[in-house]
């Protein structure tokens, strides 16, 4: 796992739409580097013969039958929305994507 630097943090912040000041980027680069280093030591312990694990429990095929369950009313759906209009969530237009 590659070390994390300030540019990586700035890139991730952009991806996540998080505004960060120069000081925050500096501080976060340091903190994240420590975290990444710590995770790296786990990778070393696992060795090459252990496959990457996404799920620790050997469980597969947890399914649901295709039967309709509960739904929300529009009012319930929108109850936590910062803004709404005519039954729909109202969000700022995001111009740099489509």
């Amino acid at each position: 796992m590659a070390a994390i630097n300030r540019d990586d943090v700035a890139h991730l912040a952009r991806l996540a739409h998080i505004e960060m000041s120069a000081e925050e980027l500096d501080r976060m680069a340091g903190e994240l580097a420590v975290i990444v280093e710590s995770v790296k030591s786990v990778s070393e312990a696992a060795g090459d013969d252990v496959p990457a694990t996404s799920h620790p429990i050997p469980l597969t095929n947890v399914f649901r039958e295709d039967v309709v369950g509960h739904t929300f009313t529009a009012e319930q759906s929108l109850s936590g929305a910062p803004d709404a209009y005519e039954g729909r969530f109202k969000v700022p237009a995001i111009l740099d994507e489509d």
Partner: protein
Amino acid sequence: MTDATLSFEEAMEKYDPVLGFEVHVELNTKTKMFSSAPNVFGDEPNTNVNEVDLGMPGVLPVVNKTAIESSIKIGLALNCKIAETCRFARKNYFYPDTPKNFQTSQYDEPIAYDGYLDIELSDGTMFRVEIERAHMEEDAGKLTHMGGATGRIQGADYSLVDYNRSGVPLVEIVTKPIEGAGSRAPELAKAYVAAVREIVKNLGVSDAKMERGNVRCDANVSLRPHGRERFGIRSETKNVNSLRAVEHAVRYEIQRHAAVLDSGEPVIQETRHWHEDTRTTTSGRAKSDADDYRYFPEPDLVPITASREWVEELRATLPEPPAARRKRLQADWGYSDLEFRDVVNAGVMDEIEETIAAGATPTVARKWWMGEIVGRAKNADVDPGQLGVKPATIVELNQMVEDGKINNKMASEVLDGVLAGEGTPAEIVEKRGLAVVSDDAPLLEAIDAALAAQPGVADKIRGGKIQAIGAIVGGVMKATRGQADAGRVRELILERLGVEG
């Protein structure tokens, strides 16, 4: 600004097109991919959702078993291998169409991979399109951009979001690069999407209505000079949502790329938007470092394992593939290639099959559908199958013609009556007094009456003066108000009198 284009012919002279398609198929399961909310089109906004679809904190998705089975069926119908084990992954991006800030999708472990589809072009040429993968994911919510001049995102003041579509099961089918189509590329594009649509419809796993977005196509086009192996830079035209538009969009992009390359500029790798009104594309978003989705395995969903037994069970439920079915039907019906192609293009193959099953001969079924019904459907601006003609009606009408009860002209009139809701063919014939009187019983009655009324004439005929028969025929025609078949009447009179004609 309008992009420069070359003529299609000039573009083909200079360049070799390479295509690629991503077709999204919405499954018609009752519920969503990961939640039990209903998968229903067009209801009141934000009512076909629950906490999972809205991405509430702490909720757990659960996989819809039917959606997995449908995905495996699609994979099998596309001649794919089905993964013994596969996982879901999070595709992370921040945009209001997904409230979770990620789309649950599959990344490096699609459920189906390495398939192919043999596509038949209009002149019978077969073209093999190789399938890279078919993977499962969920649909996103629907954004409506408000304010601004055009209703598009540029200049919009805000957007409104309806999450009813959020979480609808999707299967995304991705082709390998398609080389060697040459000038058939636009036609192949249309035929490929049509074939995928037909397959998922035939499987019964999708409603497959393109106008509703059940089947959506992103078309990749690049050009390279003839003889060069390396691909050119591609554009991806998004959401080309009718078969005609797929053909036109590929054709347009070929012409546009050719003009860009001719000018010495590189093609920009970007998303293009298709505009049906002008039949052109415009620049969307260029590929950027924002396209960094940071995929990782979805921790909330355990892997899917498809045992070979399960796969074989599903394979056994697959219907006959559409292409094989067409071949079989054409052979069974004995239609020429041209006749059969006309039937397919008119969209009445299923109807003809049902009509034959109801008892009509293939020739009769084709005569009625192609000769009578397709034209009426065109006038009414509906699909022939939706006009309301039942196979039994055709069989009944045809039987009446064969029995000589009505002639073809009358039969067409009766069909109009049936479509106008006036009743069954028999009722309409009765009501409108349409019958050709060739049924012998009423004719014989009229003949006997005419002979009795003119005994002298009857004697003359018996005596060999056959030309005198006109008077009797005239009497019968008068009695039947002209609806008798005069030739048949003459035969019957001679028979009645025991005279050789």
